[in-house]
C-alpha cells in the first residue's frame, strides 16, 4: 500500500537541507507521495528508509522497456483508470506479426511496411515500432535465423514468440543486444524462462490461462528477481480479454496489487480471421487498456485510424494538441486567393483546413500560435486579439504570397475587426463564418 506524505516524512532525515530541490523534508515527502519526486534526490536517506520507501513508492504499474535502439518502446507506468483523472502515459505498441514460415520476400515486405507506414500529423510522426516474430515452424534454427535477419535489416523493436524455450533461447541470443520481449513464460516452462530472461536481460511476457494462474506466475518470477514483465491473461475471447484488461489495471491501481502491476499484451491477431474486425478489436484495446497489441498485418486503411485513435486517447487532457504557426497553402492558392486566419488548436486547424479542402477553393490559411487554445478561448485570454494578430500577419510573409490586402477572421472574433483595421493599415478585415461547416459556402462566394 502507498504511504502518505506524513508516513514518508517520518522516514526522512528531517534536516531540511534543501539539497533535494525543495526547502523542507515535509515538502519533499509530499512530493514523493504525489509521485512528483524520486527518493534518490535525498542525499541523506537511511538504508532502512530506502528499503521501506522504494517498496511503497514503486509505480503501481511498472514501466517496461522493449528494445534498445534509438526508439525503444516504453509501456506501462499508467496511473489512472480514466484519462480525465490525469492522463494516460505510454501509448500501446502496435506490433506486426511475422512468422518464420513466411517466405523471405514476405518477411522483407512486412519489415518494409513497418518502416514505411508512417504518417505526419500535427507536428508528430505516427507509426509503429514493433514486430512480433512467431516461431510457427517449431524449428529453433529457422526462428534464430529470422531473428538475426530482422535484427540486421530493421530498426523495429522485437517480440520473440515461441512455445519452445530452446527456440526462444536461440533467437534471443541472436538478437540479445536489441532487448526483445520474450513471449512467453508459462506454467510449464517458468523456471527455464526465468533463467533465460536473467541471462539475456530481456523483458519477459507471462502467459497464463486466467488471472489466478497469472498471479502465481508473476509471484514466482518476481521472487526470482525478474521485474520486467508483460502480462497475457490467455483469453482470446473478446469479452474475457477486455474484462481481464480492466481487472488487471484496476487491481494494480485501486488495490495496489503488485502481482498484476505490469503492462499487458493482447493478440487481436488470434481473436478473429476477419482483418476488419481485428482492427476494430484493436481499437478497443487502444482505449482500454492494452500495453502491446499484436496485429496479423499492417494496412494503411486500418493502421492509420488506429494510430490516430491512439494519439487522441493518449493526448494529455491538460495540454491540447497544437499545430505549427505559419502559412498553410490549401488547394494550390495564388496571389488572388483568399487569406483566412485561425488559432493553432489542432482541432480548429483540422476542421478549418478540412472544410477549405472540401470547398476546393484555393486558399491561404494563416495559423497563429495561440498556445493550443481554440478561437474563443484564446481570444478571451488575449492571445488572439488585434494587437497579436496584426504583427503576426505582417511578419508571416503572406504579403509576398497574396497581392490583395484582405484578411478573413473567424466569426467568433468579429469584435476584433475594428482593432485590426487600425493595426493593419491598408487592410480590409472581413468577418468569416462562425462555424467551420459554413466555410465552403463563404469561400465560394469570396471575390478578391
Amino acid at each position, binding site marked *: 500500500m502507498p504511504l502518505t506524505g506524513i508516513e514518508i516524512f517520518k522516514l526522512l532525515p528531517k534536516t531540511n537541507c534543501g539539497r533535494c530541490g525543495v526547502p523542507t523534508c515535509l515538502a519533499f515527502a509530499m512530493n514523493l507521495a504525489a509521485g512528483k519526486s524520486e527518493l534518490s534526490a535525498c542525499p541523506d536517506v537511511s538504508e532502512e528508509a530506502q528499503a521501506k520507501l522504494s517498496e511503497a513508492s514503486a509505480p503501481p504499474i511498472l514501466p517496461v522497456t522493449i528494445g534498445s535502439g534509438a526508439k525503444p518502446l516504453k509501456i506501462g507506468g499508467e496511473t489512472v483508470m480514466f484519462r480525465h483523472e490525469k492522463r494516460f502515459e505510454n501509448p500501446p505498441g502496435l506490433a506486426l506479426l511475422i512468422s518464420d514460415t513466411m517466405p523471405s520476400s514476405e518477411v522483407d515486405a512486412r519489415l518494409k511496411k513497418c518502416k514505411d507506414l508512417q504518417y505526419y500529423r500535427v507536428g508528430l510522426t505516427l507509426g509503429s515500432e514493433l514486430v512480433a516474430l512467431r516461431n510457427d515452424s517449431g524449428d529453433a534454427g529457422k526462428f534464430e535465423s529470422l531473428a538475426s535477419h530482422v535484427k540486421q535489416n530493421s530498426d523495429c523493436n522485437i517480440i520473440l514468440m515461441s512455445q519452445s524455450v530452446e527456440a526462444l533461447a536461440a533467437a534471443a541470443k541472436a538478437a540479445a543486444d536489441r532487448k526483445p520481449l520474450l513471449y512467453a513464460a508459462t506454467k510449464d516452462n517458468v523456471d527455464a524462462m526465468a533463467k533465460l530472461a536473467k541471462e539475456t536481460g530481456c523483458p519477459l511476457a507471462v502467459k497464463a490461462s486466467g488471472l489466478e494462474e497469472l498471479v502465481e506466475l508473476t509471484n514466482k518470477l518476481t521472487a526470482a528477481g525478474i521485474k520486467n514483465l508483460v502480462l497475457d491473461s490467455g483469453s482470446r475471447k473478446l469479452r474475457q480479454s477486455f474484462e481481464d484488461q480492466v481487472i488487471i489495471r484496476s487491481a494494480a491501481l485501486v488495490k495496489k496489487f503488485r502481482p498484476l502491476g505490469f503492462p499487458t499484451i493482447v493478440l487481436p491477431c488470434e481473436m478473429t480471421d476477419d482483418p476488419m474486425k481485428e*482492427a476494430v478489436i484493436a481499437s478497443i484495446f487502444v482505449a482500454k487498456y492494452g500495453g502491446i497489441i499484436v496485429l496479423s498485418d499492417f494496412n494503411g*486503411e486500418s493502421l492509420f485510424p488506429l494510430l490516430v485513435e491512439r494519439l487522441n486517447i493518449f493526448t494529455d487532457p491538460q495540454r491540447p494538441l497544437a499545430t505549427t504557426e505559419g502559412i498553410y497553402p490549401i488547394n494550390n492558392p495564388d496571389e488572388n486567393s483568399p487569406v483566412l486566419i485561425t488559432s493553432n488548436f489542432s482541432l480548429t486547424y483540422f476542421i478549418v*483546413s478540412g472544410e477549405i479542402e472540401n470547398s476546393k477553393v484555393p486558399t491561404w490559411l494563416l495559423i497563429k500560435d495561440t498556445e493550443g487554445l481554440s478561437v474563443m478561448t484564446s481570444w478571451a485570454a488575449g492571445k488572439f486579439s488585434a494587437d497579436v494578430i496584426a504583427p503576426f500577419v505582417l511578419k508571416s510573409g503572406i504579403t509576398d504570397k497574396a497581392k490583395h490586402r484582405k484578411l478573413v477572421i473567424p466569426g467568433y472574433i468579429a469584435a476584433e475587426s475594428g482593432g485590426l483595421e487600425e493595426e493593419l493599415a491598408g487592410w480590409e478585415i472581413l468577418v468569416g463564418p462562425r462555424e467551420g461547416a459554413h466555410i465552403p459556402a463563404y469561400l465560394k462566394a469570396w471575390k478578391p
Partner: protein
Amino acid sequence: MALDIPKTRYTGSIKQVKLGGGDKAVTIGGETAYPFYLFEGQMPNLPKIAMEVYDSPPQDWAEAALEPFAGVTGDPVAWAKKCIDDYGAEMICLQLASTDPNGADRGADEAAALVKKLADAISVPLIVWGTANHEKDTEVFRTVAEVCQGKRLVIGPVEEGDHKKIGAAALGYKHTVSASTPIDINLAKQLNILLGNLGIPDDMLVMDPTVSGIGYGIEYCYSVMERMRMAALTQQDERLQFPIICNIAKEVWKTKEVKIPESEDPKMGDIKKRGILTEAMSAAVLLLAGADVLVMRHPEAIRLVREILAEMTAA
C-alpha cells in the same frame, strides 16, 4: 497474495427509455455498471444502431458511403426500407439536412410531410434530426411534432436555446427529446434539469453530448461521456442518468481522411475500407464511453459493430 478483484461501488443506474411504439419499439439504457463491465453489473439492453437516411440526395458523400444505397438516395422512404429490409436496421435516423437556412432552407410543412410519410411507412423507431439552427429547428419541430402525433418520434438536437419551444411541442405530442449540449458535462446536466422542469418525463429524454470521430476530437467526447457515466453511476447524479445518443456517422464521413484516394496517398490504404473502419472504430470507442444509440451510415461498419457488441456481451 491471492487475487482480490476490485469492484467499483455503484450507487445509481441509467434510466430505461423506450423508443418508438408497437412491437418494433426498442428499449435502451438500464445499465448498472460502466460500459461492458459485465463482471460488475448489467447492461440489460444492448446499445442500438440507428441507420441514417437523408431528406435530400447527398451531394458530397464519399463513393464508399453512397454505394450501398445506390438507387434509393433520392427517396427517403425507399432508403429507409432498404436499411430495414436489406441491412436489418433497428431504428432509422432521418437527417433533415435540407431544412438548413444556410443551405436549401426547405420549409417546415414540407419537412413535416416527409417525416409523416416516413413514419407511416416504417414500424421501427424514428429519430428526426434538425440542423441545430434554433429558429429553424423550432419552426420545423413544432410542425413535425404536431403532424406526427402518436408516432413517438425522437427529436433532436434540442439545445438550451430552443429547448422551451421544442420541448413543449414534444411534450404536448408525446415525442422523446434528445437533449444536445456542446461536449460539457455541466451544460448537459443543466439542460436535463431545464427539460425536467418543463415537464419532460425521465423516460422521454436521451442525451446527445455532441460527438466527433477519430482524429477530430473523439478524446473530448470520450472523456465527457466517461465522466457522465461516472457521475450517474457512482455519484448519484440523478440528472445525468440518461441514455446517450451519438450522431457519429456524419462526423466521420465528412472528414478529408476518408476521402483521400489510395492513388493519391498509397500509405492510407484502401479508401472504402478506411472509411468503414474509421466509422466502426469511432463507434467502438464511443461504445466504451457509454453510447446507448449510435447513428451510423455504412452497412459494413454496422455489421462490424454488431459483431463486436455480440462478442463483448457473449455469455
